[in-house]
């Protein structure tokens, strides 16, 4: 029997004027998998993540999450369905404390955000769950710090914990290692290896060392089109990939 994909992208296209950001793209993501998406700047990787997460409307094509067509669902609806994402540039609430960012996401996940009369700061279940999530990314000691005072690496960690708080069925990480030092990158690599069992990961990353250390499958985009897909060995030996992307890395 064929494995059913958690995420299926079917002939997805998106243009900005004359520029084709994604052109007739097909892609699958299966359980227990880290699928890395690589390609030169402007090849359409982030555009694809934005379309999957609902922040950008596709021109044509379909997106399926566990066989449900979510192509026309809003971003917030998709988040509640379990599509969790991190942003290319850290996107957290800087004026909040670390733990309040998690309270916000836990409450958003449960859908009771129009409630006027319960005190979210006194919700013990959320506080306990928030600390559990911070423990995963090793941020418990900064739970009550203002996010604006955190380092770049800690903000990245917080973003990952926010994604995890959504009970994700699918994790979309857009350059999570960007700007991190070696130690923090290694921590992320170890973390992602554990996380993929909970939810498959679609990973956009420029750091090829991390990609090869993590990815079960790699797809390469160029000018919005998929030019290759396979494991590390297949990608490294692909002449076209060498020409448009990996060649530059060397």
């Amino acid at each position, binding site marked *: 029997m064929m494995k059913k994909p958690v995420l299926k992208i079917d002939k997805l296209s998106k243009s900005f004027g004359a520029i084709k950001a994604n052109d007739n793209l097909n892609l699958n993501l299966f359980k227990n998998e880290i699928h890395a998406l690589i390609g030169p700047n402007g090849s359409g990787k982030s555009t694809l993540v934005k379309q999957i997460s609902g922040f950008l409307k596709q021109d044509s094509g379909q997106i399926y999450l566990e066989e449900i067509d979510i192509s026309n669902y809003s971003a917030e609806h998709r988040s509640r369905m379990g599509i969790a994402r991190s942003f290319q540039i850290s996107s957290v609430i800087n004026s909040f404390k670390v733990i309040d960012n998690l309270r916000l996401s836990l409450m958003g996940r449960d859908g009771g*955000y129009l409630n006027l009369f319960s005190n979210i700061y006194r919700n013990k279940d959320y506080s306990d769950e928030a600390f559990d999530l911070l423990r995963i990314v090793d941020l418990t000691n900064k739970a009550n710090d203002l996010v604006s005072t955190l380092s770049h690496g800690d903000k990245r960690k917080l973003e990952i914990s926010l994604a995890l708080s959504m009970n994700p069925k699918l994790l979309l990480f857009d350059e999570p290692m960007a700007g991190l030092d070696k130690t923090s990158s290694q921590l992320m690599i170890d973390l992602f290896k554990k996380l993929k069992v909970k939810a498959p990961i679609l990973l956009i990353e420029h750091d090829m060392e991390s990609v090869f250390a993590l990815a079960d499958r790699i797809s390469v985009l160029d000018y919005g089109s998929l030019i290759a897909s396979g494991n590390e060995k297949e990608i490294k030996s692909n002449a076209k990939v060498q020409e448009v992307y990996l060649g530059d890395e060397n």
Partner: protein
Amino acid sequence: MMSEKKLNFLILIFLFLVPLFSILLNDIYITTLFSKIVILAIAGIGLNLILGYGGMVSFGHAAFFGLGGYITGILAFHFNNYEPIQILVFEFEGTNQLLFVWIFSLIFSSLLALFIGYFSLRTTGVYFIMITLAFAQMLYYFSISWPTYGGEDGLSLSLRNQIPFLNTMDPITFFYICYVWLIIAIIFVKFILNSPLGISLKASKENDDRVRSVGINPKKVKLISFIISGAITGLAGSLYADLNRFVSPTILSWQMSGEIMILVILGGMFRLYGPILGAFFYIILEQFLGGITENWQFWLGLIILLEVLYAKAGIMSFLIKDKYDEKTSS
């Protein structure tokens, strides 16, 4: 310097004792003046919910303030002349009972806020400012051109609306009615700020994308907050009409919107009690500077200019010690 909690407590105690000062100084005008301060503070608390905590710069809150005022005036007008209010084929009696007047003011201000918010919240930034202003100006010109209710001359209330067993014409009684509403507004907004809606509102002020990515629809959050804000401001308008026993298009004008916004900024956005201090200083400056020079607005403008340059967090920030001042005001 003191803690914010202590200052808030002192503000409430001071306001509570105002009628006593008034009696001791044998000047009942002080109580009436502070009734105006309390009413404007309620309007400011309404605006501050969306301006300070939600980042929505509404330059049209006079629409809600004025509507609350006009509903009060119109109900009293029809009560006094025994003519029913006709809306399409329906007829309604007027009333002079404050409880009904407040309920009508709250309902209609909410409905107006739903209407204005629904369209305005499709825009952001300067467009949001302009569209809220445009809606308020539409109502302003409509009120001018509606002779039934006085047009440009406005509408007088022969007596204040009433509450059973209370003499609302007594300045001290009326002051305490306003004071109770101020307490209710503070408690209500405090509840909201600690609620899921409140945390979503504060988050969406800073980062809509983050809010959406955790499953929250920021437009819904903003619209509901806008409606609550409009309702609170509408109630303040209703009290204002009763205080003055007069309502005119002036309270629908853009100057009124500006006045409410100024007292919020003056007292301190992001602070629940900021608009109370703002209203206090605004009215006191108006009285004090107004007694010295006709051009008191010039000096008020200068004070606001200095405040915006050197103390973004408002007068509250001078009086309290709070390590998060800079961060929350950025």
